[in-house]
């Protein structure tokens, strides 16, 4: 029972998903009419599940309940709890952001249930302390996301699914190969067992490096960093926009969570650390540069945010590269990554929900068609502008603090060159982010017809924008949370 209590946040999501499927299945039997109007009921259930998950996580924090569950398969610590909050909150926001989309759509129950299942999988990814558990959680969210990307069953959606599914499956196989060698070298699948092998041996270093490279290649797909980013723009463009938001925030954060678990908990000691730190530093530099340069030339705003998310992932990786080189007492590298993921969640969710609201009204994802949105809907334009400023890294937004945090970690770890590349890239990124803002504010619209977002979108957007300013102005609570999450690995 103790095990189930610790796993409560994930179970709440899964039970919610099961309930939604059952209700969706049985409702037509009860009444045809009720089935037609099922959307408020189903999305209410989904929100309730997300809220239940958040509440349970909060209860675990308040009662100071920590520990391992299921024979060390899962560890509930501050790191896990941080990501529990993150994924449950993001799932809730995505449900709110999907209501308008779902109203025109057939598979409402499946869609909402799959979002909750994917969120549960992601939060298990952060919690898993055994390779078997991590693998299953990884696939749980991946398979749910395949179905979500292609749920509209139209041509571009199914093509996006094809690319996502094939590349994801290949990356999974590569990850598994890396895991097989970790298991073969250490004889253990638990991260603790692997860690004690890695810390106490000088043998087989090349095999270990090989395993680390395979793991990086496989998990790099989840984080969407160069050179494993090919799927990003196409899938972001082809998927329903709320799912794009989910992918860009939650799936990416889950990828980073797993990378931190494996590389910090299992490969965090011994000579191997310098090997993967340089690997991450190189990937970070290339990701930032390539992502930003390609984002410059995009005309579709979802594609642009896709490339920008590659660049952001590169920026986050700076923090991971800094971990190995820094003074272990500082904890700057790890906590900066955790902080960045939190701040990035607010920012990107806000940006995507604003895009859903605007694109729904103007009927286009092209940046050129965003001309004059500020005159038609000043509040929406302001919200999107705030999110884009945060992505660029202007004060007083969350993105500013996050970037300073990460660059500081790099400088403390003697990776000044990486920090300089990061700053230069922020300057490049300002160009394409501000182009959208300029388009919205400085140009005239074709019609003057005013519009407002639906209350669901408005609520989610308001929460995101308030959050990103709150973190930007008073970041201390989130910094403390990130530090206590990072302390798990010290």
């Amino acid at each position, binding site marked *: 029972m103790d095990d189930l209590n610790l796993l409560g946040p994930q179970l709440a999501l899964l039970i919610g998903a099961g309930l939604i499927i059952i209700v969706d299945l049985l409702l037509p039997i009860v009444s045809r009419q009720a089935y037609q109007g099922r959307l408020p009921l189903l999305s209410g259930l989904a929100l309730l599940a997300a809220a239940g998950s958040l509440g349970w996580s909060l209860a675990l924090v308040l009662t100071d309940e920590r520990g391992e569950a299921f024979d060390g398969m899962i560890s509930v610590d501050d790191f896990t709890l941080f990501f529990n909050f993150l994924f449950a909150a993001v799932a809730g926001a995505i449900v709110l952001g999907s209501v308008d989309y779902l109203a025109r759509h057939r598979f409402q129950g499946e869609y909402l249930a799959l979002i909750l299942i994917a969120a549960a999988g992601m939060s298990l990814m952060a919690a898993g302390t055994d390779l078997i558990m991590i693998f299953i959680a990884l696939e749980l969210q991946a398979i749910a996301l395949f179905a979500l990307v*292609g749920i509209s069953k139209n041509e571009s959606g199914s093509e996006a699914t094809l690319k996502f599914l094939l590349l994801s499956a290949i990356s999974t*196989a*590569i990850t598994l190969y890396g895991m097989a060698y970790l298991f073969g070298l250490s004889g253990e*699948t638990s991260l603790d067992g692997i860690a004690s092998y890695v810390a106490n041996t000088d043998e087989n270093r090349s095999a270990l490096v090989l395993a680390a490279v395979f793991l990086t290649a496989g998990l790099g797909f989840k984080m969407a960093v160069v050179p494993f980013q090919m799927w990003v723009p196409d899938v972001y*463009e082809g998927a329903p926009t709320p799912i794009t938001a989910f992918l860009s925030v939650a799936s990416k954060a889950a990828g980073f969570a797993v990378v931190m678990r494996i590389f910090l908990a299992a490969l965090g000691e011994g000579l191997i650390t310098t090997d993967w730190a340089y690997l991450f530093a190189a990937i970070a530099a290339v990701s930032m540069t390539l992502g930003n340069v390609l984002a410059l030339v995009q005309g579709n705003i979802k594609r642009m945010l896709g490339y920008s998310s590659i660049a952001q992932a590169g920026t986050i990786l700076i923090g991971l590269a800094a971990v190995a080189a820094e003074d272990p007492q500082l904890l700057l590298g790890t906590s900066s990554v955790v902080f960045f993921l939190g701040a990035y969640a607010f920012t990107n969710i806000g940006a995507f929900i604003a895009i859903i609201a605007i694109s729904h009204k103007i009927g286009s994802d092209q940046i050129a068609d965003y001309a004059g949105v500020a005159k038609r809907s000043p509040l929406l334009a302001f919200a999107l502008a705030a999110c884009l400023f945060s992505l660029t890294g202007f004060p007083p937004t969350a993105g500013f603090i996050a970037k300073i945090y990460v660059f500081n970690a790099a400088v403390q770890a003697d990776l000044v060159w990486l920090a300089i590349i990061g700053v230069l890239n922020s300057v490049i990124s300002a160009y394409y982010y501000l182009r959208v803002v300029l388009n919205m504010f400085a140009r005239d619209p074709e019609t003057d017809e005013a519009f407002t977002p639906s209350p669901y979108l408005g609520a989610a957007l308001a929460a995101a924008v308030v959050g990103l300013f709150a973190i930007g102005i008073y970041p201390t609570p989130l910094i403390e949370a990130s530090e206590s999450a990072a302390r798990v690995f010290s």
Partner: protein
Amino acid sequence: MDSVDLEHFLVIGAILFGIGLYMSLAKRNFVGVLIGIELMFNGVNLTFISFSRFVESAEPLNGHIFVIFVITVAAAEAAVALALAVLLYRLRDTINVDQIDLLKW
């Protein structure tokens, strides 16, 4: 039975994995790509099983358990992938990966 060593199995696993990777990147037919991915998984499975047979370990069965889950997950993935293949064939009349290029690759 000692004469067939761990290395033999690892080499075969690596060859299977390599053939699968090549197939999944080079094949143009969607189902061919899926078969390549299955081969990669089987290469991984063989590696796991042979490690858990030969390596001294506190929990030697973990390799076997891992393989069972890999098989399950691969089946689930194949189910979704084949559903997608049917959908694509209905929409586009082809499952040739090259010809599915509405979005820029």
